[in-house]
């Protein structure tokens, strides 16, 4: 028990250190540049303490829960030796986590509004909801496919830069054909798809896979899943904007 608390104290201290920069930036700007007192100081202090405790607990949970889980799944699939089930799993994980992602829901609603102003979608609630839902579906599909592609890449040992650089070409070419109001949203959708719980799990999965397949180096082959999952949605969203 004492070891547990000593451990927890350590992680609290490191998460406090992680937050110091934000606190410094915000207070400096508030006091020196804007020259205003900080409003609701009490509630902000309580909130900051919650952030610090939450971050410490989260990181602890990563180490004892999510990392071993991703690793165990990767090894179990490698031992089973069925590539097709692994692909289905990768797709389900990518699609399932992305479609429900709150940041994506927020962006999709904004995108529907932009499309409405651009005259692509009728100004009706149902039409806009439809547009937002299909956009989320498209992004979910693209993240699912990128995990499939990424897992295939780990198994085959393709260098990630070939995939990424050819992806860039596709994105750049599509940019010239996509309608103007979708471009900003498309580029942003790449960044928001990968959430705080998905990232550790997917990273652990990639590293676990590459360390259980002979001839793969976790450093070279294990990383790269997130990169694909942030690139493919850009291309898919632009195609979506062109088709609708």
């Amino acid at each position, binding site marked *: 028990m004492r070891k547990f608390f000593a451990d927890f104290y350590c992680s609290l201290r490191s998460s406090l250190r992680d937050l110091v920069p934000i606190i410094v930036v915000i207070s400096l700007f508030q006091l020196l540049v804007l020259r205003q007192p900080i409003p609701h100081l009490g*509630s902000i202090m309580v909130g900051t303490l*919650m952030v*610090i405790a939450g971050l410490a607990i*989260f990181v602890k949970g*990563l180490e*004892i829960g999510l990392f071993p889980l991703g690793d165990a799944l990767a090894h179990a699939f490698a031992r089973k030796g069925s590539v097709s089930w692994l692909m289905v799993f990768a797709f389900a994980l990518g699609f399932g986590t992305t479609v429900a992602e709150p940041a994506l829901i927020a962006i999709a609603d904004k995108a529907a509004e932009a499309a409405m102003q651009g005259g692509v979608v009728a100004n009706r609630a149902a039409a806009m909801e439809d547009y937002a839902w299909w956009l989320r579906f498209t992004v979910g599909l693209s993240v699912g496919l990128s995990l499939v592609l990424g897992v295939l890449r780990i198994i085959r040992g393709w260098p990630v830069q070939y995939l990424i650089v050819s992806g860039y070409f596709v994105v750049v070419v599509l940019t010239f054909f996509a309608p*103007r109001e979708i471009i900003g949203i498309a*580029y942003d959708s790449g960044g928001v798809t990968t959430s705080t719980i998905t990232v550790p799990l997917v990273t652990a999965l990639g590293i676990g896979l590459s360390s259980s397949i002979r001839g793969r180096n976790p450093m070279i*082959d294990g990383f790269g899943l997130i990169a694909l999952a*942030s690139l493919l949605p850009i291309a898919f969203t632009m195609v979506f904007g062109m088709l609708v």
Partner: protein
Amino acid sequence: MSAWFLSLAQTLVVTLKNVVPIIVVILGFQLLILRRPIPNWRRVLIGFVYVLLGLALFLEGLDKSLFPLGEIMARQLTDPAFIAGEGSEFGQALQWSDYFWVYLFAGAIGFATTLAEPALIAVALQARAVSGGAISVNGLRVAVALGVAIGVALGTFRIITGTPLYYYIIAGYVVVMLQTLYAQRMIIPLAFDSGGVTTSTVTVPLVTALGMGLASTVPGRSVLIDGFGLIAFASLFPMMTVMGYAQLSSLRARMARQREEK
């Protein structure tokens, strides 16, 4: 006090909802396809509970402290009355150079929020473990944070000047490709990944507030067209800084070796 607990419980429910698809997928495959128990499943379960609780506390705390404050500040800093300064004439057209404090704030907040990003901590921990300690957790995080800082500052410059987003993105892609040719193979996948992980829980809301605030106050900008794009900047530049960091440290190592040989 009870209102606090109520809203914490609500956040917990929302977090739980996000995790449900992950749990369904994993459990489904575990039971139907793999048919093999997870080793130490009790520990993993406790870890999951920690992750959920920690994330809920983290998000709730952000909602109580940093988010409202950051959003108010983004609005105040982008307010034309503040930017023009007290002494200047009203109605004077603003130049891009008048927005000095906005660039500084954008860079500083991009840097600071990235250091607190939980997903980046996760990737940095993995990178340290896989590289056998050659990549330090804080070194990687500072490199990524620098990239986000440059990206967000440049992104605000783009909104203020109103230049098209894709010029910057395409130029950025070219730089990333050139760096990829010369970077060590070991660092490339990690650098590409660090682009995607930087922008999540902490950074996205604050940076989006800044972008929307700017796009709505700068004359001639549309919130819907120009307000987006900061996230894209924030995920592009970390790739350059992470590869740059690796290239710089290998260059230093080579120079040190040459000096020894002399």
